[in-house]
């Protein structure tokens, strides 16, 4: 299969991720959509590495996974802290700071 097919799938994944961020209100789901954007990039990296016959792209994916894992840890902690103060993870209720 040509590499462009994989890229197309990764683009679809990316767009789904972006739309998810825009339409969902639950902080955790928004975060999962962001993870989907990251994974779209991972797929693109792997596909490109295969096309280039390089290992670099595949190694990048590991780095990205580490970053994503770190973000999960921090993100969930932030969301939990928020939940403890507000008993809600609805991002639309987080609106103290404005204008």
């Amino acid at each position: 299969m040509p590499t462009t097919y994989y890229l197309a799938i990764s683009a679809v994944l990316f767009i789904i991720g972006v739309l998810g961020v825009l339409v969902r209100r639950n902080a955790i789901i928004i975060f999962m959509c962001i993870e989907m954007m990251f994974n779209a990039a991972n797929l693109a990296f792997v596909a490109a590495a295969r096309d280039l016959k390089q290992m670099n792209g595949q190694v990048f994916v590991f780095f990205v996974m580490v970053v994503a894992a770190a973000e999960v840890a921090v993100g969930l902690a932030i969301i939990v802290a928020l939940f403890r103060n507000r008993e809600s993870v609805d991002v639309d209720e987080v609106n103290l700071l404005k204008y």
Partner: protein
Amino acid sequence: MPLYLIVLLPLLGFVVNGLFGAKIKKPLPGVIASLAVGAAFVVALLRVLGLSAGNSATADEPNRIVETAYTWMNVGSLRVDVSFLLDPLSAIMILVITGIGFLIHLYSVGYMQDDHNDPEGRLYARYFAWLNLFIAFMSVLVLADNYLLMFVGWEGVGLCSYFLIGYWFKREDAAEASKKAFIVNRIGDFGFLLGIMLLFTATGTLRYFGTGDSPGALDGMAQNAQNFNAGTLGMMGGITLITLLLFVGACGKSAQIPLYTWLPDAMAGPTPVSALIHAATMVTAGVYMCARSSALFEAAPDTKLIICIIGALTALFAGLTALAHNDIKKVLAYSTVSQLGFMFMGIGAGAYVAAIFHVFTHAFFKACLFLGAGSVIHALHGEQDMRKMGGLAAKMKATNITFLLSGLALAGAAPLAGFFSKDEIIAEVWKVQAFAPIYQIIGVVALVTAFITALYTGRQYAQVFGGKPRDEHLHEHAHESPPVMTIPLWILAAGAVVTGFFGVPHIPGVPEQLHAFSNWLSPVFVERAGEAHASADAAVHGAEHPVNWALLFLGGAIGWAGWFLGRAMGLRDGARAVLPGSTSRLSLDALYNATVVRFGFALSAALRWIDEKIVDGFVNGVGVFVGQVSAALRLTQTSFVRNYALGMALGAAIIIALLAVR
């Protein structure tokens, strides 16, 4: 003695008063400040005497001294030194600044002694600290040998002016006026800065004059003119653009249309500040800058015409507005705007000597008028409304006589200082050959404005000092000011009487010594385009004499006639103010009422309305508009994360569309 001492001494005064002023007992900070400026004046005087001793100026070997104190930045093509230039032009400016500055410091010691806005005297030292800092920055402005250093001084005096206008910050109007002055000046300043940067782009240097093989920005305009008109810069107007931008800066600092609105408001500051900053020195910085850049302006005749028109309009407009005001300081403020208009007429006509001469004489008589007004306000415990004054001549002899002399000088009554300098400008405007018809119209406007000047000055004098007291209570308590205030008045009044004789017009029969001013100054400026030694060789151009004589007499007549007419107006006006509706029995008065007064006052009242509602309203309106845009824009900050994400996504979509989809 190095030139930087002139800057350093007042700076030292600022540091001492700024750090320890609060701990020193009352008159002492003023004494320290006065001594600092006095010492600077002595240094300046010695250096200028040294300069004139070596006065053998030729075109090849100009009479100038450059002293570098410190290399400030040296980056690739940009090298800026903190170095000072003393030539005939900066010599005159620095003498005026430190000399009149010293007198005003002295006066301030008395004036600020019992300040009813600051009974505890907590601000006293701060006042003198700012005043000293102002002198230091003003000296930097005129002594700088490059545009960037001049700009630093330019902004520095703006900052000091801001703090001094807002000195009585408890008064709402003072705080507002200081903010307005600062912000309006920024507009001009950034025009100036753009002009400087374009000039640098075109010439590759910021120094006025080069040394050795590296030419300065103002040297060799013949070759530079090609640089100016080449490439992108040329397409944008080249030298005309640069000079216009420089003039925008001058407009802001020297209160010309449309950026003059801050100056009348600036009267909220203490009166000596108005005298020093808003009459004698800072506001003339724009004139100085244009004169300094005469080489550029001579290469841009279009700009000169625009300057001349704006100067004439400002002079006329502000003169008429002055007629409609009753606040003793407001009248003087509008008068300053008007006189600055005259100076720019001179610049626009290419008569730089005449313009600087007017700066010089104006500094004396206007400072004296302001200080006299301050003395009156001091005597009347803060009263500024002229309708409540009158009959002060007997009570305040020294103030009366000095105010009369300097008032006559402002009115252009022969043979006082203002007569010679104003007449010189008007004569020069008439003489311009390019765009001659327009310049002749401007000349007529200038004559009319000179008449109006005499009118409002005479009116003011009569209202304040003449006639009978209109507010007995105020009059009872009026008293002459202490000598520390009257001595500066006398010195300045003497200046207002004699300085005119340094610049008597070039007409046959006048001894050479009476042209001292132009002999001293003219080597600094380039010849007016298309005119070889027009004023120096007046004998050759015999045809000019009749015009000159006619103008001279016309000017003198206008001065005196306007003065007496205005005086009558003031007496009548003042009487009417107390007894509304009373008709005067004097037939002359009836004549005024029917003609000049009815029409003239209607016009000037209309102009005052335009000034306050439209021009000021526009300047304020821009602010209000920006504020409303701001209030609307901040509503986009909704606090909802998803809205922010949507904003990002939309921005991303636009960027992707522009970059990738094509």
